[in-house]
């Protein structure tokens, strides 16, 4: 069985949520494996990140090099090629960084590449069996991947939720010296953050989406409060934009934005085809509507027939309570 590594993204000394997911995915490949976390970066942030990983990984490889201070996929790829033993399996989160890094890395490692994996069903000899989705999540596929010369596997964020585990009591191994001098033909310049208030609903994992059922402009605040508690954004259907209660940029639908959240709270949205056309990626849809015949209930996962204006504040309060409990 090849060694399993997990490339961990971190920022300002904090590791990405995907770290535990990758550890869990590694154990799904081989329950007996002790996967190795591999981190690249520079300075105190890197050290802090490595430290936090002791709880979920038995070993964390630290690759420190000044050019790696920002995770430029080209530099990271060059570093990993030098550090990773041939034939390893590397797990990477399937996010904007993983998409940037993983395919090219598989070429340079001469290993197999399988992306956006939702589930791992096991290993049979030199074959790794995984589950992927195709066609916007409408169908799933069993995929067999030849890992005899190693593999780079990207893991769909959120697909591998690890049960809370005990501390792995891991150690940090410094592999920086393996890297040598790094240079890239692509140079990071800066990150542009959109102006405050300019919410991009296509980028959110959770959307509190409101429709006509919100009834009045003042009630939009009810949705916003819930969204604030959930760390979500408020989106809406066309009538809300027509009424000028929200910006056009918040509209989901064939004439608005196409969103791919994980969770979609459809509040007072009847579920017209034009609206549903804007919801992609098969999210978990919770529909709240007064009308039990609203078409949204056809497509939702969970349906609640209730008055939005009463239900929303109660939901918001409950989330608030839970967060207070969690904080204690």
């Amino acid at each position: 069985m090849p060694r399993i590594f997990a490339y961990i993204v971190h920022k300002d000394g904090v590791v990405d949520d995907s770290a535990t997911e990758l550890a869990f995915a590694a154990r799904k490949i081989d329950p007996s494996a002790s996967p190795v976390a591999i981190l690249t970066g520079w300075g105190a942030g890197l050290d802090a990140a490595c430290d936090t990983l002791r709880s979920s990984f038995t070993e964390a490889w630290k690759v420190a090099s000044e050019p790696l201070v920002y995770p430029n996929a080209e530099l990271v790829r060059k570093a990993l090629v030098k550090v990773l033993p041939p034939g390893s399996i590397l797990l990477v989160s399937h996010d904007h960084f993983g998409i940037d890094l993983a395919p090219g890395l598989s070429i340079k490692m001469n290993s197999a590449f399988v992306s956006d994996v939702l589930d791992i069903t096991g290993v049979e000899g030199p074959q790794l069996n995984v589950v992927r989705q195709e066609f916007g999540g409408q169908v799933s596929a069993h995929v067999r991947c030849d890992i005899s010369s190693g593999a780079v596997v990207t893991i769909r964020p959120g697909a591998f939720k690890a049960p809370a585990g005990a501390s792995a009591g891991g150690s940090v191994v410094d592999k920086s010296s393996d890297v040598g001098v790094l240079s890239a033909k692509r140079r990071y310049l800066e990150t542009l953050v959109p102006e405050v208030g300019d919410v991009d609903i296509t980028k959110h994992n959770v959307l509190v989406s409101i429709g006509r059922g919100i009834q009045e402009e003042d009630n939009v605040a009810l949705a916003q409060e819930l969204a604030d508690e959930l760390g979500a954004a408020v989106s809406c259907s066309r009538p809300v934009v027509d009424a000028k209660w929200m910006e056009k940029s918040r509209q989901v639908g064939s004439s608005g934005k196409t969103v791919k959240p994980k969770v979609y709270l459809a509040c007072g949205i009847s579920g017209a085809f034009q609206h549903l056309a804007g919801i992609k990626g098969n999210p978990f849809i919770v529909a709240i509507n007064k009308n039990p015949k609203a078409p949204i209930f056809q497509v939702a996962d969970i349906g609640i027939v209730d008055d939005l204006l009463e239900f929303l504040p109660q939901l918001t309060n409950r989330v608030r309570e839970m967060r207070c409990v969690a904080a204690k």
Partner: protein
Amino acid sequence: MVGNYSPARIAEWLVPGRSLFLAIHILGVACFSYIVARRLVPLFRAKRDFRFDRPLTRLGTVLKFWLGQWKHPRYKTAGIIHLLIFAGFILLAIRAFSVLLVGVSETLVMPGFSEGVGHTYNLVTDYAATIVFLCMVAAAIRRLVFKPARYAVPARYGKAHTADAIFLLGLIAVLMVADSLFSASEAAAQTQQGAPAEALAVLSLPWMLKAALVSASLPTLRSLYVGAYLLHALTFYFLLCYRPFGIQFHVETSLFTIYFAKLDREILKPVRWGVPDERLDQVKSFGVKTFEDFTWKHMLDFYSCADCGRCSDNCPSNAAGRPLSPRFITIKARDYAFQHYPVIGRSNNSKPLIGNIYSDDEIWSCTTCGACEEECPLLVEYIDKIVDLRRGMIDDGNVPQSLQKPLKALESRGNPYGKLEKKRADWTRAQDFQQTCQVKTIDGNNGADTLFFVDSITSYDDRMQSIGRATARILDHVGENFGILGAVEKDSGHEVRRFGEEMLFLALRDQNVDAIKASGVQRIVTADPHAYNALKHDYKDVPPVEHISQVIARGVRTGNIQFSPVEDPNKVYAYHDPCYLGRHNQVYDDPRDVLDAIPGLKRVEMSRCRDRSFCCGGGGLMLFYEPKEEERMGVKRVRMAAEAGANVIVTACPFCMTNIEDAIKVAGMEGKMTAIDLAELVDQQIVRESSPKESELAVCGG
């Protein structure tokens, strides 16, 4: 003559008077001819337009719309003022020529004007001049004091046109005064000299002026006589030459615009006149991209527009605050023509119109409802121009993303939603419907006399399927042997064509025509006015087509259909005319007759009804287009229904239904207003031996 002086002689101390006036005439006529010739330059560079056929019909159009001023009284005050001015002008035109001739030759008399006729004529023109003068005053007061909203120029379209309008009104007033003064001074002088004076019409402007001048000295009168003549001549030629620079050009061009007006209003302009569909592939560029891509008649329209604003006053897009005002489609093009084809200087090559004088949104905003054309007194064409501009945009690939998806789906699937063809007849398979009505799909084994052409929205939209089922049950009730095309039916392409995608329309049309011919049906019925219009006017060689409201009306007349009374006494119905049933096909009475045949049904008319119906927001691809607007047309329409005292809007079009039901929700009038399709209402009220299951008017929307 004033004493021994005729105007021709009076200026002899300077130059021979006759030569002076002759020079003025020649110069004036030459200037005018030159200006008009320059104005005609773009028309010769324009695209072809076949307007030389059916001269008698065209003459009839001229008699009705030009001489008869048919459309003018649709706006009462302005219409009456215009009628009076027009009549005055016609009368004075002859007089103007005779006055002008007097300056050149005393002996010249208008042919056919014997003493008696000429005398009566003079009396009439005295009044004519007076009335025109008063009309100028009234028009100026309207412009300056009452300021009708339709004359206002929104900031985005430039400066107000008031100053120019007042200037022109003033010039005409001056012309009238000069003319009157000319007659008055002559008559006054004659009276003073005891000569038999020309009788002036009592209380007319010349009569009043004469009364004021009767005691003036002869030399004063002489000066006035000559001065008035000179003023008249100069003003006349100034006006003549100034008119081609602005809205007054319609005085000269309207006759031609109306003579060459489109006779087959319901048929859309071909991509290129004289190029048959099968040779369209050889046309290098589609539609209107530069000014020269317009046809000469369309350019003539631009010259002829009198800026009256009736088009925009009736335009629902304009009312909804969309960036479209038909009036400025014309005014901007006219200004462009004046600027790029100047009277003095070189004509310069034109830039693309879109992005320079028109915006994309402006052109996509039109619902082709036809309200502007219905209103225009000069029969200016708008839909053809909009469609031609869209053809140009389609050809350049300049199409909003929101329209590209449905267009692609229409190409690959034959419906704008991208739904599977095999699901097109799914609406017939609703369980409780199937128990009451079996709809057959016409194929080799199942023939039918009548084809129910369903079209895309009624086939695929959950809510509109109910209109399809109601229609089927009605056809069943009246004993039609009918069927549908099922999966082989394609979108009628009505909006595809009107959105400028001609080639896609032709493909859809050809597929439908083949399927219809293969079905062997004798007639076609549809519940969708857009499909109705397409089948009736855009398609060729298909059996006659009727809208379901016509079928129902016939059923009512023959007693084949009978209704049970309306149960709810609180319901007040208003019928909303769908544009493509009403304005474009003049089916106004059948739906109303049907409603009035339902016992106990209370019906009111909205103030905008019949040929002034207000578009609901547009059908077909317009549902996919996201216009920038202040308030939806549908919302405005729903409010109009409420103002009329109605609480049920009856319509006869699935697109109207979509827009109106949405608008009721947006307007927050749920519970206060409902909408129902005529077919649904009929299906509900019809008396059957065994009545069908409860009608299925589910509440839907998004």
